């Protein structure tokens, strides 16, 4: 029985001898090889995704001026940023925007900075004895600020729902434009290439895992918000709806506009496409079996985004979704992705190459994720006031 350690795999990576496959390649290999044989032959499997991840944003330290200001209201190209972090620290969220200009949001500020563009910074303070200045208007770039790093509290959802619309009205959602009367269905996960579907029980992904984030090396820093391990699973141990997530960090100054892209979803708002890749070490036959998961073994739930409470209408596999049509309520429905499989494949290949060349080592998590977590809903303690 093969059992490998992180150290052994890293020694092979440093020597340029590691055998690395993408998750799609290993799934194909698994058609003719047993998990034991895969564990024997393969060291690392690369996974990736490139989708809109709304819970993303950047922490920025602007640097101090003379005289200094305690920034208590901050705008970057007119987009509001968080003002509650000391004098010149801030957080710009991807979905933040000036309500007057909903098409340009925090995601676009992040992209503009990443592309090297100048951004207008305007900030106000009340003026204190130690921070006497009350107003500043200036221009910044990613090179003029001290730090700018992505800190995304909820990324890389482990599976996600398929969106349909049974109503007679066209609706605009973060899952794209949903035509009336079940005329289309959209899905967003990279299926067998998707990171958290290849390690569904988090045996190798945890706090401290080094990842590919936006073209640079980043890290998993925490279980993501709404981290849920209690969703129903299918016979292959795959949750059949959106379940776990990860919080990630990476230096925006080192990233590439090729793997970070601002987006505006009509009548919804802005979001950020994030390119992410996670290497999974094939420690043993169990991990080999996990990374060998195929699209026909990964199922997800079809939800009606047109009806209150988004009721579930069915369950389909990624193989069916990728075929172009699924059946919902007995009707053939055309499918479309809303996340880029082409980009995800590009990332998985790049990460594979980096590992093969010894430029990217795998990490043993410093702490594993919690188990048996579930979600709370927000309860309303105050009744609606009657007019």
């Amino acid at each position, binding site marked *: 029985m093969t059992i490998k350690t992180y150290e052994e795999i890293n020694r092979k990576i440093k020597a340029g001898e590691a055998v690395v496959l993408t998750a799609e390649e290993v799934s194909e290999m698994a058609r003719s090889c047993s998990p034991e044989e895969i564990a024997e032959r393969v060291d690392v499997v690369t996974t990736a995704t490139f989708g809109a991840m709304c819970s993303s944003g950047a922490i920025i330290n602007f640097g101090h001026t003379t005289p200094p200001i305690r920034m208590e209201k901050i705008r970057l190209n007119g987009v509001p940023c968080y003002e509650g972090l000391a004098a010149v620290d801030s957080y710009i969220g991807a979905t933040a925007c000036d309500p007057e200009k909903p098409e340009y949001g925090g995601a676009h500020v992040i992209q503009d900075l990443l592309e090297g563009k100048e951004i207008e910074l305007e900030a106000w303070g009340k003026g204190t004895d130690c921070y006497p200045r009350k107003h500043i208007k200036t221009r910044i770039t990613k090179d003029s600020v001290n730090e700018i790093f992505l800190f995304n509290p909820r990324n890389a959802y482990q599976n996600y729902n398929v969106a349909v619309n049974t109503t007679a009205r066209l609706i605009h959602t973060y899952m*794209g434009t949903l035509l009336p009367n079940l005329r289309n269905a959209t899905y967003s996960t990279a299926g067998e290439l998707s990171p958290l579907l290849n390690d569904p029980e988090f045996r190798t992904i945890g706090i401290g895992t080094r990842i590919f984030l936006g073209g640079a090396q980043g890290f998993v820093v925490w279980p993501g918000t709404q981290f849920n391990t209690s969703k129903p699973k299918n016979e292959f141990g795959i949750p059949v709806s959106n379940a776990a997530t990860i919080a990630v960090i990476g230096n925006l100054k080192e990233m590439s506009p090729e793997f970070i892209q601002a987006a505006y979803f009509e009548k919804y708002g802005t979001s950020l496409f994030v390119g992410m890749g996670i290497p999974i070490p094939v420690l043993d036959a169990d991990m080999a079996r996990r990374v060998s998961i195929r699209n026909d073994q990964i199922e997800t739930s079809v939800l009606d985004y047109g009806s209150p409470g988004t009721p579930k209408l069915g369950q389909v596999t990624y193989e069916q979704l990728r075929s172009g049509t699924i059946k919902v309520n007995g009707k053939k429905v055309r499918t479309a992705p809303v996340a880029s499989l082409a980009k995800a494949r590009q990332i998985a290949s790049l990460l594979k190459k980096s590992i093969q060349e010894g430029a990217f080592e795998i990490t043993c998590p410093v702490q594993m994720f919690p188990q048996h977590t579930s979600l709370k809903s927000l309860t309303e303690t105050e009744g609606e006031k009657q007019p």
Partner: protein
Amino acid sequence: MIKRRFILNFPPDSGDKPLSYHLVRDYDIRINILKAEVFPGKRGSLLLEMQGTAANIEAGISYLTRHEVVCEPLEKRIRFQHEKCINCGNCTAVCFAGALTIGPPDWELQFDKSLCVVCELCVTACPLKLFEINFQ
């Protein structure tokens, strides 16, 4: 026989002339109106598919032009910044005409402009705003 799609923009005073009738009768062109916006006394726009011999279609276009109808091939009115496309697929979700498709093996967007019916749903569905369609 060839089949081509054109966008026709009519001047304000052209509403009383049966121009499409003459295309059929005088030039033997099979027409299919795929989209029409008519504002009497102001302007009118048509997306017209013409099927006929190349010579007849050319003559039909000349006839329309003589009557001050601006007539342009559909492809010229569609602008798509393909180089910025991330192949997310959002536009393919709304393109019931089948002009925008994505799928195996490479999952890169294919755009066959000749199939476009100018529903303009892709204009708003694209999260990067890469489509522009000029119908009027």
